[in-house]
């Protein structure tokens, strides 16, 4: 955040595009894009990173959750110009070299998903929670996941998955 100034953003009325540089899952990418294009569309349509899902488009379901500079963000609420120079982690970026992230393993083994459409966003939200709070209370779990809707599980399997990761202490 070097510069401290106002930026004018022009909508693509004619063929106005901007160049942005982003690090996505550790890889630097230079993109030419309309400035107001939603990040979720860049990820899904331009970069084929379809693990990030789209469901409500207004930040009310969490299916499009990604991490921007370490913070959990709804990628449907962020525009291209706003992520210039940012570092973005999507669900595709959290698999570790040795295999699944312990959160993913816990979701698998505790039945933290059914249709799976909310799962990438949910996993990102859990990751964001445990990165800050490795041993969260029930209230903290609820707060952290309150923006991620799941229609299948009733959250039972998700809660058990989070509790399992906490018990295993892999994020401590």
């Amino acid at each position, binding site marked *: 955040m070097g510069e401290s100034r106002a930026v004018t953003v022009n909508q693509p009325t004619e063929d106005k595009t901007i160049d942005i540089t982003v690090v996505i899952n550790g890889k630097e990418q230079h993109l030419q894009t309309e400035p107001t294009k939603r990040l979720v569309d860049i990820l*899904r*349509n331009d970069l*084929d990173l*379809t*693990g*990030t*899902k*789209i*469901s*409500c*488009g*207004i930040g*009310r*379901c969490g*299916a499009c959750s990604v991490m921007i500079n370490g913070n959990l963000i709804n990628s449907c609420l962020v525009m291209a110009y706003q992520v210039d120079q940012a570092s973005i982690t*999507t*669900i*595709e970026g959290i*698999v570790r070299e040795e295999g*699944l992230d312990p959160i*993913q*393993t816990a*979701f*698998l*083994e*505790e*039945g*933290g*998903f*059914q*249709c*799976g*459409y*909310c*799962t*990438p966003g949910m*996993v990102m939200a859990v990751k964001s929670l445990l990165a800050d709070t490795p041993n969260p209370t*029930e209230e903290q*779990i*609820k*707060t952290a*996941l*309150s*923006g*991620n*809707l*799941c*229609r*299948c*599980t*009733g*959250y*039972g*399997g*998700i*809660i058990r998955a989070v509790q399992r990761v906490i018990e295993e202490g892999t994020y401590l």
Partner: protein
Amino acid sequence: MQRDQLVYKNRNRVRPDGKAKVTGSLKYLTDLSFPNMLYGKILRSAYPHAKILSININDAEKLPGVKAVITHKDIPGLNGFGIISPDQPVLCEDRVRYVGDAIAAVAAETIEIAEKALQLIKVEYEQLPILDDPEIALEPHAPQLHENGNLLHQAGYQKGDVDEGFVRSLVVIEETYQVPRQMHTYMETEGGVIVPEANGALSVYVGTQHGYKDRFQLSRILGKPEEDIRIISSPMGGSFGGKDELNIQPYGAILALKTACPVKIHQTRKESVISGLKRHPMRITMKTGVDKDGKILAHKVDILADTGAYSTLGPAILDFAVEHATGPYMVPNVKTEGLSVFTNNGVAGEFRGFGGNQITFALEGQIDRLAEKLNIDSIELRRRNIRKVDDVGPLGHRIAPTNGASDVLEAISNHMKIKRNELNNLNLDKFKVRGIGTAITMHGGGLGQGRLDPAGGRLSLNKDGKIEIAFGFEEAGQGILGVIETIVTEELGCSTDDLSIIIGDTALVPSSGSTTASRGTSMVWHAVKRMKDVFERKLLDQASKHTGISVNELQLSSGGVSKLANDKSFSLVMSYLELAEHMNKSKQSSIVTTNFDFPTTPDDVDGGHFLYTFGSVLAQVEIDLLTGKVKVIDLDQSISAGPIVSMKGYTGQIEGGGVMALGYTLMEEALMVEGKYITENLDAYLIPSISDVPFAMMTEAIESLHDGDPYGPRGVGEIGTVAVAPAIAKAIHDAIGYWVSRLPVSSEEILQAASHRRMKQWAKVEQ
């Protein structure tokens, strides 16, 4: 009770599609893209009811980047769809009947261009009076929405003489229950890609719950033979009944054929809300009479369902509600009448529970009110009326013998004692009160008597040496893949690595009927049972021929065919790949197929079911006396549905179904005013978040079936949603002494009711 009860050893296994889901690598059909793909958008009606005077697409067609604009003129075949009666226009020509009616569709290079093109389509309307309530639609001079008027369907059931029953009754309760329009809210909205293939064929990558039915419907619309249409319908990001009917497929198909390019349509949430199916809002009036011992003598039921603008499965849903109007109780005198009525509201159709949820809320509400009046414990009142093992079903028809009703009632009765004791020892904030309630239900599986309900499957050893099991089912999240894997590996003795499961693609699978009505698990089990012996025999015969070992000493096992040694150990004699190569060479077919119908009642009772599942629910609520808010503290269920095939799948269905019903009870309503949606996205249409659910829920499975029951595991896709609302309503009454009869429960109503019982002078209700 069945002694040697079936227990699947592998029922705790992780489901086969899991890893791809937790890593985000699974490609849903709305994630697909193809070279030269265009984006489609659909223009929906500006009004709930209007004449279309003209449609002008000239400007839209001229917009750079637009490749095709279609209207009713572009439909090659029938301009209509609907699973039973195709009365919904694909593209309206002269009239719109609800805000989801489609008038035109566009294919363009980008979504933005397609959106802009929609704005350039000029439609002249002449507005017509809006029928936004079934009672208004039934008035004699109401405008007629369809050729045969506004009454879609009338259904009823009569037994004995209710009037005489009421005369003999000591207590009679009459109440009207109102239930809302619930949205499925599958997280993945409708969509996919339709790809034109060589020779005019079409591949349709769009989720649905019955690929073959979509193929049939599309064939009719496109005027194209079914063989030229391939439906790839799996996986889906949820459906819950909502994607069983056609949604965006016809528009994508016509646009793809017209442009000769793949066309992707993925509805936004707002588009989905406006055009998608909903659960039927119903007004149910019940009058129920009991004698002094609590024996129900008469039960009179009137159902008025708002089916919206088109029929889809409206008639079947009303039939189901009529059937389940007496639930698991034996009632001598019954008169049930139901009307399903066309209006200019959103189209109501199939939704998990299928009319059972609405009717059970009313029925269980009646039982609880009667128990209060009689001063009998409400569980005891149920016990006095409950069906026994060999009793007939609710339409007087024979059903598979089952003690499920009593089993779940007694289970929840025991659970109630524990919870009541806990609650009695709890200290609460002075402005909070708690209450506990229970409810039970029975729910029919399959489509019912007189409805085509075929199932089938195919088992083979493919050329790669995999045991290939193919079904026409779809994976919407419910876990059918896990169910197939467990049943096939356990029944055949092979391992998961030996297995190749194919579903959801009409080019590759046999017809299995629809992935609905809690029938999947049941049908897989029946199909595998039917195919297993023949398939085993075929493989072992060939293995025997090849190895010279007698068939009696061989068996299918993990990795291939094994020989049973004297010390009872096994040794692999031939891998499945070797066997496949051998059979290929000797031109021996390994394919086994089966076709059969879902078991139905032998009695000629239209719609009557044969296999029922049973559920009981305990809900504990906490009511905030300052705000009227109701919070669910416990939501525990006991289920009787035969042996568990997949533990996580089973628990997940019950917990997930329970929470979906919690939403139905406390917050969900797709609100419409004068035919227009007020709740257009997930900021206003609320589904439960993690903060709204009990942190731990109990699912108790009663796995035993009646002695000698040959029908195996039943599906549990719906049962967990059915009896939740009445349990919560009873819990609210337990807390504040007020009966809720309208869903979703209004905090305002609760606050008023609670304040009448308040101690504080300052807390009287503002008038």
